[in-house]
């Protein structure tokens, strides 16, 4: 009773419970989106056109591929292919950084065009437009912060793989970082159509 064997299923349950809180956190913003979309459908569609579909699609592909590489890294660890696991996690992190770089340029363009939270252009625009961009910045911003946290978690996993603290029978850290990374991807899967594709 005193010495407990590590309970993987329990750790995983804890991680999933944490993911539920993340889902509800973004859910709060999606509630706002749903309400304002229903109120200002036309304005939202118009404003959505000004977002760059190419960058959005590119970022979607980047995140999907990086999700794939993280999932494969777990398979690699399970198959004791340590070297390929390192490569796969590495690739995922590179993609994660690429995503942020993309986002940086995308935000930069919008800022130059005078569209940023509280900007005079938005304040004078028709009702609803500043809501769209407000939500856009909040959701993608919060999502960006999650990418950064995900990158930190992945780098910890990477370090643990190289120091062999993660191996075929013990990989909870990698698995949970992976879960987090997939969740970030999952949220992007909804952000992409809701902001870039409503035409």
């Amino acid at each position, binding site marked *: *009773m*005193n010495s*407990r064997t590590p*309970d993987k*299923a*329990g750790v995983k*349950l*804890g991680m999933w*419970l*944490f993911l*539920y*809180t*993340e*889902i*509800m*956190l*973004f*859910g*709060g*913003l999606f*509630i*706002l989106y749903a*309400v*304002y979309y229903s*109120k*200002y459908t036309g*304005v939202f569609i118009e404003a959505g056109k000004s977002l760059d579909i190419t960058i959005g699609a590119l970022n979607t592909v980047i995140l999907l591929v990086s999700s794939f590489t993280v999932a494969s890294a777990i398979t690699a660890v399970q198959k004791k292919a340590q070297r390929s696991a390192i490569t796969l996690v590495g690739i995922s992190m590179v993609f994660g950084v690429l995503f942020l770089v993309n986002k940086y340029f995308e935000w930069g363009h919008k800022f130059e065009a005078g569209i940023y*939270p*509280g900007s005079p252009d*938005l*304040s004078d625009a*028709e*009702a*609803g*437009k*500043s*809501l769209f961009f*407000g*939500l856009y*910045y*909040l959701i993608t911003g919060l999502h960006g912060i999650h990418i950064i946290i995900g990158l930190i978690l992945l780098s910890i996993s990477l370090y643990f793989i190289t120091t062999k603290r993660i191996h075929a029978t013990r990989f909870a850290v990698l698995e949970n970082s992976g879960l987090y990374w997939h969740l970030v991807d999952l949220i992007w899967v909804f952000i992409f159509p809701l902001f870039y594709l409503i035409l």
Partner: protein
Amino acid sequence: MTDVQSYLETPSSPNLKGIRAWLLTTDHKRIGILYMISILFWFCIAVTLGLLLRTELMAEGKTLMGSETYNAVFTLHGVIMVFLFIIPGIPAIFGNFLLPIQIGSDDVFFPRLNLLSWYLYIFGGILAVVSLFSGGPPDTGWTFYVPFSIQTESGVTFTVLAAFILGMSSMLTGINFITTIHRLRIKTMGWMQMPLFTWSLYATAWVQLLATPILSITLLLIVAERIFGIGLFDPGRGGDPILYQHLFWMYSHPAVYIMILPAMGVVSEIMPVFSRKAIFGYKAIVSSTLAIAIAGSLVWAHHMFTSGMSDTAVFVFSLLTFVVAIPSAIKVFSWVSTMYKGSILMTPPLFFALCFIYLFSVGGLTGLVLGAAGTNIHVHDTHFVVGHFHFVMFGGAGFAFFAALHFWWPKMFGRMYNFRNAYRAAILITIGFILHYIPMLILGLQGMPRRYYNYLPRFEAGNFFAGIGGFIMVTGIMLMLVNLVQGLRKGAPAVGNPWGGTTLEWSVPSPPPLHNFVDQPSVKSYPYDFTDIIQQQAGSKQV
């Protein structure tokens, strides 16, 4: 059993000494005690603030403080009471201490996360203090309604962040409890053998888990609005201030159940022990706990009947509110019936529990007035509401907290307290309570709005009596706390099972040893089976 060292003597990491053995502990019992100290500290502060408010109101016009100070004081009273006392109160202290023992485990599933939760709690408390000195104390009320909370120049940003951090702390505790109950429950204990307190914590944890993030994001929105001025709730740019209220109450109504469900769990433990009889309708209580947790999350908009919300929403949410009333009624009936043909021993915890049932019933029944759409319009945002939710939160959750203190104090510290003083305190608190809050109900019906530092002359008598009641109540609370602390030094040593309880925490020594159990705990097929206890007593009488 005699040479077992308690958790008070052996730190959970054997190399730690002195204060570090407490501040760096991962032992759920020590963390429970840490919570107890910090929560009681904030409780005393908030009680003092509350008393200041009522003293100001005892006479018409400005007596103690002006409007600005008054607004800051009632905001702080609310924020501290809600986020630093009632929400963490029972789960963080008694949940932490007892949940693992009640399910036959040696600790919670994530002990270090548990300690982190405590540090977040402390950090949140410090932020709340910081908010006082950054642009002046917050003056929005604990609801932070927009657009006022965005426009005011006081230090709302920090207060909001404090609430955010405290929310995280409570969320992590929730994650910990759910995982613990699922993974560390002793193999022989099925779901229907779980004590009712554990059941209530389980339901609470789910509400904490799913509702708190909504509050987190809402509070972050306020911060974002204050810093960047996005205008999400600004009608000038198409925003909808009422939507903020939806988001806020989506958390804050379920939060009421985060506060009251553990309290109901405590009472469900106390009633059978002192009636020496099985709880009436174990399964009904379990299912009503779950029903309250689920249905209670769907009634948030009954705080918004006058907000300008659609009439359809008023209809739906009013109806759902009455649906939630039913499981609460079932619980009250079950507790009372537990005493039927029991063998009742009057003790301070039972006395508090009985006061709980009475005061909570008043709170619940006045809630019906608020749930009904037509009557709600008149009493909404008046002192009737203030009276009502204090009956539920203080008369309910608060009294259950006191009952839990007296019930588990001997278990936690291995010492008894003075019964006579405990009764005196309990009577003072109850009488003071009734004198304090009944006038508020009446004032509300007469039409005195809440959050008023000054009022029309015709409300003076009621406010005066309420103030007197407040002083009596606070005297009682002080007496109670002093009595408990004195018990630590002067109290007679407590045996392992002083009350004759059947759940697992009573099968271990008082205070419990470091790893909770000396022998493998044996689980009863029915958690409130008193046959052994009755036989033991009969045996001891013959000897």
